[in-house]
């Protein structure tokens, strides 16, 4: 009962926030609402017993990516062009895609079903981690050890993305203005 009430309240608020982002014309407002959306989804992740993801989502979604969007706005423009007419095509595409996806969920295991096929691997991890590692956090153990290659790849992707940003935005020395403002 508790679970359902809270789930429905939080999910309703999430949906409202998502709609608010679509409605928001001010770009700064949209960026901040994006952060708020991350916060809320992180809260729901905690309710769903995934504290590690919630932690990351809160730190990344609400903190760092908001700052990045704001920094971009500060060097481009903070004004968005007003949309003149309502477009029908995007709505049609979205409704159609959504309908297909919902049709696809009909065969999915129920929410919270302990017998769902996904859990087969997970249960094995849960059994093996305490014996092989003697540490309490199963997520860290799976992340670092059983899925160590994965994580290595992801770290490399982060580094590559950082290098990409530096390549795109780094000013070459000859570009620097003669008069330095300091």
């Amino acid at each position, binding site marked *: 009962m508790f679970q359902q009430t809270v*789930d429905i309240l939080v*999910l309703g608020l*999430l*949906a409202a926030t*998502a709609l608010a*982002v*679509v409605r928001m014309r001010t*770009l700064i407002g*949209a960026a901040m609402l994006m952060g708020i959306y991350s916060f809320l*989804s992180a809260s*729901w*992740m905690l309710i*769903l*017993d*995934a504290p*590690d*993801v919630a932690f*990351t*989502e809160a730190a990344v*979604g609400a903190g760092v*990516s908001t700052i*990045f*969007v704001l920094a*971009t*706005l500060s*060097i481009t423009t903070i004004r*968005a*062009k007003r*949309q003149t007419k309502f*477009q029908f095509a*995007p709505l049609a*595409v*979205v409704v159609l*895609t*959504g309908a297909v*996806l919902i049709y696809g*969920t009909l065969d*999915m295991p129920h*929410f919270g*079903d*302990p017998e769902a096929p*996904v*859990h087969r691997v*997970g*249960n094995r991890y*849960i059994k093996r981690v305490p014996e092989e590692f003697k540490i*309490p956090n*199963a*997520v860290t153990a*799976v*992340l670092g050890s059983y*899925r160590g290659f*994965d994580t290595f790849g*992801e770290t490399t992707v*982060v580094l590559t*993305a*950082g290098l990409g*940003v530096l390549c*795109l*935005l780094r000013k070459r020395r000859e570009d620097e203005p003669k008069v330095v403002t300091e």
Partner: protein
Amino acid sequence: MSEALGLYNYWIVIFLMMTGLYLVISTGNLVRKVVGLNIFQASVLLLYVTMGRVDGATAPIFVEGRETYTDPLPSVLMLTAIVVGVATTAVALALTVRINEAYGTIEEDEINEQEHAQELAG
């Protein structure tokens, strides 16, 4: 009826995903597109995390006195995806900055107009 009600989590998450998608394809503003992509991404994370849930279980950080734990695997996959997501978002934003420097605007239709004008001239 109760068959279908157990799936409400997926439906709302799909609604959230579609909101993000709508934002991406309906707006011409590049920064709003990035915001839409971020919303889409956060919703996909939610989809995976809801799959990992087990009724009556607790988070997969072992404590005394609890026997059932939720599935750590979706958590692990999404954990790395989030950080990669922010890094790629940053690349998208960097591209936006460069586009703004080249065209003087971040509105898609204005960029298209300029491209078109160049084609006609050249």
